[in-house]
């Protein structure tokens, strides 16, 4: 288990009476690419948001490597660590939002470097150099002084990835990275993610692209109704689903 980048045990989350996550456990090891699939409303985004500390778990244990973010108290309620712990945990993951959530008033380069400079207190030169490196890697070298609204969807997506990567996280979370994009752009972004996978970036990806999930993911989790219905190696879950619900879900996808 020394390899575990993020571990969630018995995670539970309800919005009012609506139990959205019912006892979810998962471990993501270094270098893993985990795809999370499942029908709308199944709790995929909520799971990601709990991992990214945008929602608080009602109960469960969550750690990033050796850093315990929250654990159950005697009554079985999740108790979160202090501000310093949370701040430290935030350096260990990055999140790429479905609709990017870039900062519209910042240039591309500022979007990527501002948190480095202001939050991580990295010297400005170093941060800019790093930001430019990442943008170049994403094929955006010539866009650094543009603002997000002047970029196409695919370019914005790549800026969002660069912004998350800039913090040098141990794991990168994606929520439906391509659902706002047209097919050509989808292809482009999937290529970027494939490249990251090839470089052994640890990733958790909520996606509707089955072909992509099968190609790029090591593991697939199928979630429905707040539980993990099925979990296993990618090709196995997609080609030979064991559960009826998984089969029914996958039947929606033309596989011709």
């Amino acid at each position, binding site marked *: 288990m020394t390899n575990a980048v993020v571990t969630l045990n018995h995670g539970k989350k309800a919005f009012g009476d609506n139990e959205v996550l019912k006892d979810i456990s998962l471990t993501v090891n270094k270098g893993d690419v985990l795809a999370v699939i499942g029908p709308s409303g199944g709790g995929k985004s909520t799971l990601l948001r709990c991992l*990214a*500390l*945008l929602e608080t778990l009602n109960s469960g244990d969550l750690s990033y490597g050796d850093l315990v973010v929250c654990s159950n108290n005697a009554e079985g309620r999740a108790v979160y660590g202090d501000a310093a712990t949370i*701040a430290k945990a*935030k*350096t260990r*993951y*990055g*999140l790429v*939002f479905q*609709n990017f*959530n*870039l*900062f*519209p*008033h910042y240039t591309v380069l500022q979007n990527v470097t*501002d*948190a480095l400079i*202001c*939050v*991580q207190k990295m010297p400005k030169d170093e941060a800019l150099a790093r930001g430019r490196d990442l943008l170049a890697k994403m094929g955006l070298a010539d866009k650094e002084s543009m*603002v*997000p*609204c*002047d970029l196409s969807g695919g370019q914005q997506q790549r800026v969002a990835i660069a*912004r998350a990567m800039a*913090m040098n996280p141990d794991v990168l979370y994606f929520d439906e990275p391509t659902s706002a994009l047209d097919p050509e752009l989808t292809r482009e972004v999937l290529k970027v993610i494939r490249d990251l996978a090839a470089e052994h970036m640890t990733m958790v990806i909520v996606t509707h692209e089955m072909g992509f999930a099968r190609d790029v993911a090591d593991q697939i989790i199928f979630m429905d109704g707040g539980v993990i219905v099925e979990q296993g190696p990618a090709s196995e879950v997609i080609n030979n689903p064991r559960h009826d619900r998984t089969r029914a879900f996958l039947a929606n996808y033309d596989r011709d």
Partner: protein
Amino acid sequence: MEFPVMMGILMEGFGLTAQIFVITLVGSLPLGIVVALARMSRFKPLAWLAQLYISILRGTPLMLQLMAIMFGPYYLFGLNMGSDWKFWACAIGFILNYAAYFAEIYRSGIQSIPRGQYEAATVLGYSKAQTFTKIVLPQVIKRILPAMGNEIITLVKDTSLAFVLGIMEMFSAAKALAASEVSMIPYAIAALIYWVFCLVIEFILNRVEKKLDYYHD
């Protein structure tokens, strides 16, 4: 009265008008943010207090607020504030009053910033203060500029209320001149000066608006 003399008196008044205008903006633009944040606070007593503040300051005439601040210390507490107090009372009254109006404008702006912006900042590790000053506020300013413009132009003319404290700003000077000359000309000149001042403000606001047009969301 000769024209240059009249203009001299009006311009002297305009100096005070401009001072009240600038001091009010310098004080109430930041204070408005504080009041807006208090109004949106999750600590309910603070939110209610801010709401009461806004409702009273907007709901009663600025002229009476100025008088209350001017005379309150003496009539309520027997304090003798001295002869400079009227300038302080004027500044305090205008700042408190405009902060209430600005607070409501800020609030509508802050509430229009999508949650996603906060969430993105949180995930990147920005503190709450950093998120507000670096991410939210700059976007709010762009959104509220037109509403602010309306209010700022109202302020130009509200400066004339300072006369209730004995501060002879331009409009009161024009009134006095009109009376002593039995003539409408001082009024006409004052209107012209106000108008030019407002045009300058509109020009500056348009410039800022253009400048913030480098992005849209």
